[in-house]
């Protein structure tokens, strides 16, 4: 499946949750399949921390560049593009095409950099609603995401209850724990204390806070895998024949983390990373309801599919059960899968037959 990324430009200002206003913005997106005549088969896919609008397929000029959820989305896949019109979108604040810190600030003619406002999950959903209007989609057959993407799928059901028929919420949490926030803060400190950060204004200095980004990514990767999965994958295997008794790479896991950190620091923007982790930290739909998630979900109208993975200690199954409880309290139609998978948080990207079988069956039952 060859796909072409597109951009939609919006000249109306977007008022953000922080009170700041984005005077204009662009959203990068891709589509797969055909919108039907009734415009009833659209599915919005929301991405997690480091992904993009490139959900599925490849590019004609870059066949190696396969979408991040290509195993899930495509012709004959669980989210079958022969039936559905699927939209991948890139959230604002990203560094992959939608307006973000690397974009030009119309007020100065220079990159926004540190001046780009802090955006929230609610802001992303509001921007996605503009994209839906642009594409002529009044109501989505489903909004779907994993991890941070799942927060967007949840928020869609709260921000625009009448515009979502099904909300598919995978490896989610309705709010970060103190431990989750703690990991994010360590990642942010790694970036902000990098001498090349320059308070976020590093674009015109020809440097990138690469060391900070590397460490941030290394921390992230520790939380994406379970203890067991990490032990299974790397164990205590050495990279060299004997321990070096120095501080170069001894263990495979060190090599893996350094590699992931290096790779990430070559393509990801530090200002974006700071903002995404803040968006995660701030997300808490129950906050306006005295912490009562059931009250927060009272306005939801969608049907829900909630999926968690037992070895996910970043967003544990208990947090997904909190979501299920809140939905049951509101008598929403909901199914919940708690998949006994060893891989940790990253399991949501893998093609476990139970997980994919359930999603295939769920999408199969969505009448258009």
């Amino acid at each position, binding site marked *: 499946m060859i796909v072409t990324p597109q951009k939609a430009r919006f000249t109306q200002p977007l008022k953000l949750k922080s009170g700041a206003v984005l005077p204009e913005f662009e959203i990068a997106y891709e589509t797969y399949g055909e919108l039907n005549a009734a415009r009833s088969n659209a599915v919005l896919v929301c991405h997690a921390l480091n992904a993009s609008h490139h959900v599925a397929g490849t590019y004609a000029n870059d066949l190696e560049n396969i979408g991040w959820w290509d195993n899930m989305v495509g012709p004959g896949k669980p989210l079958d593009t022969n039936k559905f019109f699927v939209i991948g979108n890139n959230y604002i604040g990203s560094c992959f095409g939608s307006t973000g810190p690397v974009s030009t600030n119309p007020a100065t003619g220079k990159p926004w950099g540190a001046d780009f406002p802090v955006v929230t999950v609610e802001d992303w959903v509001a921007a996605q609603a503009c994209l839906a209007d642009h594409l002529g989609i009044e109501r989505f057959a489903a909004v779907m995401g994993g991890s941070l993407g799942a927060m967007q799928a949840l928020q869609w059901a709260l921000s625009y209850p009448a515009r979502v028929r099904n909300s598919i919420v995978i490896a989610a949490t309705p709010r970060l724990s103190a431990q989750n926030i703690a990991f994010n803060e360590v990642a942010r400190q790694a970036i902000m204390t990098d001498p090349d950060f320059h308070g976020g204004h590093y674009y015109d200095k020809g440097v990138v806070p690469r060391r900070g980004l590397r460490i941030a990514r290394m921390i992230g990767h520790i939380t994406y895998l379970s203890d067991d999965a990490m032990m299974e994958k790397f164990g205590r295997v050495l990279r060299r024949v004997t321990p070096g008794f120095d501080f170069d790479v001894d263990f495979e896991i060190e090599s893996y983390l350094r590699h992931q950190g290096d790779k990430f620091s070559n393509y990801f923007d530090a200002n974006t990373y700071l903002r995404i982790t803040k968006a995660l930290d701030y997300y808490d739909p129950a906050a306006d309801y005295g912490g009562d998630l059931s009250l927060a979900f009272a306005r939801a109208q969608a049907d829900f599919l909630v999926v968690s993975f037992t070895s996910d200690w970043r967003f544990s199954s208990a947090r997904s059960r909190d979501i*299920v409880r809140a939905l049951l309290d509101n*008598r929403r139609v*909901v199914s919940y899968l708690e998949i*006994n998978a060893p891989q940790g948080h990253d399991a949501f990207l893998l093609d476990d037959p139970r997980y994919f079988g*359930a999603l295939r069956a*769920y999408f199969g039952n969505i009448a258009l």
Partner: protein
Amino acid sequence: MTEAETIARWIKPGARVLDLGCGDGALLKHLWQTRQAPGYGVEIDDAKVVECIRNDVNVLQLDLEDGLAAFADSSFDYVILSETLQAIHKQEPLMQEMLRVGREAIVSFPNFGFWKARIQIAFAGHMPVSKELPYQWYDTPNVHHCTLIDFEALCARLRLRILERVVLRDGNPVSLLPNLLGSLAIYRVSA
């Protein structure tokens, strides 16, 4: 008359139903089609959970042994435990949880006092294996078998009221000597 038909007869139209150990969701689907009773199933088996979704039945993959914390007090009209009681480790707390969450509980189980089971133990000298109890003793999900008398004693102990009882054998109601001649017991109880 099948178990599903018996239960459907008891369910008031439009009632809210929770089916614990719902399998592939066939009973819930039947209750929706015949009584327009919306419901949720609870099932732990991966393959059956996927079957429920395929059958368009709401299913929650939870372990009954962990209790029913996902469900609020009095949030259902009926909580059903169909042919699952014998596979539960802790019957007492589950029965109490069922009647915390539901107004009434409907419980069915294979009757271990059925004459064929008695003969297999008494004369053949081995654990019963039958249509209703197809497992070998070393390879069975069932951990706590009981008879009608045993179950009614448990209800008495928990001070539960038995509102109705139907005992079946091969789809036919059994009224004479049900603890001997019935293979499947279905009870409707309340607190």
